[in-house]
């Protein structure tokens, strides 16, 4: 196994007094499915965005694919981002455009500004996009406008857009937080499939412990900007959930218990 991502001593300070991340260390192997869990405000979104430099770290270093991302200049940064797909809680699509147009946006990072603006996509790029949409069960929606889709369908468009990038890593920031249980399960199954069949490494922020336990190779627990758990799901105990979630833990355990009962 080779290490794809290495986060070393990373801290992030917002303004004067918000320390969102403090001395975070972890690494991710190629092909791994890793969940980051923790209460809201723990620093999960910040951590994810430091990896593709949507947010700049205050100190520390991040290596992706044997290259430090921290010092990258504009052009190299664009190249780095083409290798990292990102999926969002609110899908972040251009709602007025069609499904296929949104999916093709995943190719923009590879293009010159001129070719990108004029949508000069190659035939095989379009075929690949259609192929991905079929894999995600969206073949009947290809020319529909995104504002006519359900939440689960929108998230699948978001996944297709990320996959057209041919990424080595997928960053997912609470991908199921706005979806109902059925759609949530579907999206998580797709992500797991992608990880296994395409060999893409997946790093996913989650609020729900039970989902993390079910799908992950490894779980990273974040609390107050620090990593407090970094191990396989089998090692997770109620005590450890309490250290991650603090006072929120009881509700979460109760909710997980309810689901098991059903």
């Amino acid at each position, binding site marked *: 196994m080779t290490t794809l991502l290495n986060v070393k001593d990373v801290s992030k300070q917002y303004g004067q007094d918000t320390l969102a991340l403090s001395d975070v260390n972890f690494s991710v192997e190629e092909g791994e499915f890793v969940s980051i869990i923790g209460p809201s405000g723990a620093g999960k979104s910040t951590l994810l965005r430091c990896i593709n430099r949507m947010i700049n770290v205050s100190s520390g270093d991040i290596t992706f694919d044997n290259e430090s991302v921290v010092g990258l200049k504009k052009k190299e940064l664009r190249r780095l981002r083409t290798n990292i797909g990102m999926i969002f809680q609110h899908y972040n699509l251009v709602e007025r455009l069609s499904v296929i147009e949104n999916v093709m946006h995943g190719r923009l990072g590879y293009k010159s500004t001129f070719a*990108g603006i004029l949508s000069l996509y190659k035939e095989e790029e379009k075929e690949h996009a259609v192929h991905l949409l079929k894999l995600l069960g969206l073949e009947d929606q290809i020319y529909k406008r995104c504002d006519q889709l359900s939440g689960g369908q929108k998230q699948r468009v978001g996944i297709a857009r990320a996959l057209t990038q041919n990424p080595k890593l997928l960053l997912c920031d609470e991908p199921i937080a706005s979806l109902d249980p059925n759609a949530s399960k579907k999206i998580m199954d797709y992500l797991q499939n992608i990880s296994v069949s395409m060999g893409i490494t997946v790093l996913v922020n989650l609020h729900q412990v039970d989902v993390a336990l079910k799908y992950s190779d490894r779980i990273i627990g974040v609390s107050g900007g620090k990593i407090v758990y970094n191990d396989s799901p089998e090692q997770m105990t109620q005590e450890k959930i309490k250290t991650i979630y603090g006072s929120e833990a009881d509700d979460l355990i109760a909710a997980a218990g309810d689901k098991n009962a059903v």
Partner: protein
Amino acid sequence: MLLFCAVSYGAMIFTQFNAVKGFTSIPSAIQWGISNFYPAAHSFEKLPAILNKLLETILTAIAASTIAAVFALFFSVFGSKITKVNNILSIMSRGVATLFRNIDVAAWALILLFSFGQSVLTGYFALFFVSFGFLTRAFIEVLDEVGESSVEALKATGASYPMIILKSVIPSSTPQMISWILFMIEINIRSATLVGILTGTGIGFSFDLYYKNLDYNTASLVVLTIVVSILILEYLSNYVRRVIL
């Protein structure tokens, strides 16, 4: 409310406006209007000339609005907090917009009379400046409201700044922007009439001419054509809005 009454009473004393006399003169004004201010048969001979001037005014208003929209688009992209390049440009473009917007169209016309004299250009630029200020402000608001979400997504794919603007921000905001441009054209046709009186061009000039020659019948026909054209335009732009929004 009390304060409002006091201020308005104070203003009446200050300007020696007599409320009673003001209200009692309304019936006689209406009576005058009915007996003089209607199109007569001889007015309709002037109709082709009036329509010609009306067309000139409408075209000036449309040209000023659309060219202003192009400039406003650039400035608003620099001004909006979502798409700004840096803070200095953002503050500068907001400042320029505020300045141009807050000078009234009549004031612009008077200022520009010095440079261009009584010509179509004076009216055109007066409308252009006000539209530019207004539309920049409106577009900034539209861009801010479109939000950061798809901008963030495109940035994360490695897209460059011009791509992000043209592939995500503009497609999301065109309907609202077109709606504002249509609104601006409506406003400008009204303003163009007023500005025309000052600059001696277009339909405003026609009205002024007939009115001062005491040809109230023809002057009323001018007003009628303006009202009809504004109603038609409003209908058209409502239709366009329904289709695009």
